[in-house]
């Protein structure tokens, strides 16, 4: 099964299916959540989290995740989120403690903060594995749990050793290679119904999106500098420019990086899904960078101008779009998956990755 390699410019917005897939049965993903319904869930749970000083937030998280999983359907069955609130609460307390001491340390002693940052960097691979195990263990479809079996050694290699060895010596150009290693680790570590996920992307597949992003980033910086020179300083009287001008140029610049980041998300997400296989079944992802940009920008403004009240609307909109771009290509019967026992997992790593913004991908 081979995919069509398109030149980067053409591949930008539509990654084609594995050869219009003869013999595959298409099962589009569907998100059935409703904005009004989820708004009520969101605001009631938020209020309860606040009045309980955050303790209820673990229950809120479980209900939110359950809502999004249970409203995501494929092949006639919804996903299930099975985690319990108490382990999440414990994980949150530990994560908040670690993050809090890190945030505080910088004010008291830079050395202490550096030491803490180093310590946290050392446990990132551990967090990644714990987080993946937790999320997989408590995600299910048709009553069968997912599992993650990737080991700590492999995680340390891909999230610590290889990045430290490779990225500095290639001036960052090997970033795509590191990302490929990490995504492969995540995808191939997953199991469902006793079957292994396989990852067919090569490291070469990862270079076009990241190189394109680096190129766009450089062009953008040059463009911003030119704009800044000509607009902000044009006819400037003596003295530094006014503050608002500096801020708006900075905001303008970040907006560009934000859009480039979304472009990378769209292309890499498509790449990862399109090259993932589970027991002969494939996925087809057709996110379009410009749709995703419009969604993110619209969501950001809507949330800002509604004082946050449109957050649930934004979340549902995003879930609907993402589901609408994903299709399961079944190579045959989906009933052949079987259950495999797996142990309970604690949520410490899973909660830390949220706070420290570890990119788990997938």
């Amino acid at each position, binding site marked *: 099964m081979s995919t069509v390699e398109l030149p980067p410019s053409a591949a930008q917005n539509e990654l084609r299916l594995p050869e219009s897939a003869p013999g595959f049965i298409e099962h589009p993903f569907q998100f059935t959540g409703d904005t009004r319904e989820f708004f009520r869930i969101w605001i009631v749970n938020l209020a309860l989290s606040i009045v309980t000083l955050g303790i209820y937030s673990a229950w809120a*998280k479980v209900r939110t995740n359950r809502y999004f999983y249970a409203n995501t359907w494929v092949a006639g069955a919804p996903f299930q989120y099975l985690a319990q609130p108490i382990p999440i609460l414990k994980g949150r307390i530990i994560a908040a403690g670690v993050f809090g001491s890190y945030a505080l340390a910088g004010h008291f002693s830079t050395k202490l903060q550096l030491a803490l940052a180093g310590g946290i960097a050392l446990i990132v691979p551990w967090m990644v594995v714990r987080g993946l195990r937790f999320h997989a263990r408590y995600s299910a479809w048709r009553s069968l749990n997912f599992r993650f079996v990737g080991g700590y050694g492999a995680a340390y290699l891909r999230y610590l050793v290889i990045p430290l060895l490779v990225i500095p010596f290639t001036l960052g150009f090997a970033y795509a290679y590191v990302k490929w290693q990490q995504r492969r680790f995540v995808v191939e570590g997953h199991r469902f119904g006793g079957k292994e996920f396989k990852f067919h992307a090569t490291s070469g597949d990862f270079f076009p999106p990241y190189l394109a992003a680096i190129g766009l980033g450089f062009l953008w910086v040059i463009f911003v500098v030119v704009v800044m020179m000509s607009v902000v300083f044009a006819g400037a009287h003596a003295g530094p420019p006014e503050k608002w001008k500096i801020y708006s140029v900075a905001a303008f610049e970040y907006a560009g990086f934000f859009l480039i980041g979304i472009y990378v998300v769209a292309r890499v997400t498509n790449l990862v899904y399109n090259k993932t296989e589970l027991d002969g079944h494939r996925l087809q992802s057709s996110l379009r960078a410009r749709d995703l940009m419009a969604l993110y920008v619209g969501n950001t403004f809507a949330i800002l101008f509604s004082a946050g009240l449109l957050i649930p609307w934004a979340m549902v909109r995003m879930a609907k779009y993402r589901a609408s771009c994903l299709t399961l290509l079944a190579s045959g019967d989906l009933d052949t998956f079987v259950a495999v026992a797996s142990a309970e997992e604690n949520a410490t790593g899973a909660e830390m990755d949220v706070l420290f913004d570890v990119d788990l991908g997938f």
Partner: protein
Amino acid sequence: MFAGALYNGRDANAVAVQCEAADGVLRIRGAGIEFGAELSRIKVSPRLARTHRILRLPDGLQVHTDDNDAVDAAFPQRNRLEALVDRLERHWRAAVASVALTLIAATAFFTVVLPWLADRAAQKIPFAVEREMGKQALSVLQRLALKPSTIPEERQQALRARFVGFVRGIPGGAEYAVDFFSAPGIGANAFALPGGTIVFTDDMLQMLQSDDEFLAMAAHEIGHEQHRHVLRLVLRDSAVVVIGALFAGDVGSAGTLVVAVPTFLLENHYTRAFEAEADEYAFTQLAAHAVSPQVFADVMRKFEAAHPELKDTSMAYASSHPPTQERITRAEQAARDYSAAHAPRP
């Protein structure tokens, strides 16, 4: 009676079944299937909107169904907390009340509870830690921006002497020291480091025309230190950041901006409250040393009306200490009180 899908717990096959609860037993019937399970041994997932319920039977069997009302009828008194939450989630009135409650509780939490907790924590932190913070901050500043002062030595000595005389009577006065630096990059500025060192830049000293104006600025900065503002701000800000990050996880894709804006507003709010507190302290101390708070108002006006040529140097102080009309008005009110108290009696 409700319809559901029975999973055997071993594979992905679902069998359509009809379930009926009676006499403490759930009877399950389907094609070639008929058995019962004790209700008390069945675990039921909590209700959530229209999503499927999962009934976990003994031996790994599962029944999935979307007939929420029938499940609730068969298993009353289960998951009482989440059953209550579910009822709230279904009513618009609860949603509206939650909006109000969230706004009120969040405001109260961030403006009253969190500052109170952070301030209590600040009291527990030993002074030695604060002094260490100040030392670190000063050494970083010296590396980056502060150079030896170019103000004549006699003038420095005179100002130091006034400063020492000024802090003699206040609690912990011996810990206080004043330092002068040339800092073209910072401009006209004065700030208090944790631990009691007050730093004036040369540009600032050049803007101040008299010793009294110097004392007015120093008194304000001493006020910051007396109230341990840096430490309290650090604790409050750190708490806001941690809580913000926790909620950003729930907020999901909308992420950082949603948290960044309220964090910025809160920090501004805290800073303004601290400025007012330091001003109050300065007015009282100045009056105690027979200096009218009018001097303070005069300095503020000077910043407010800073000449365009001076703008680049005066802006630095003004941006962290906004010379608002409100502060000037309060200083002038304090000056009137001072004159009234010191007026020659008839």
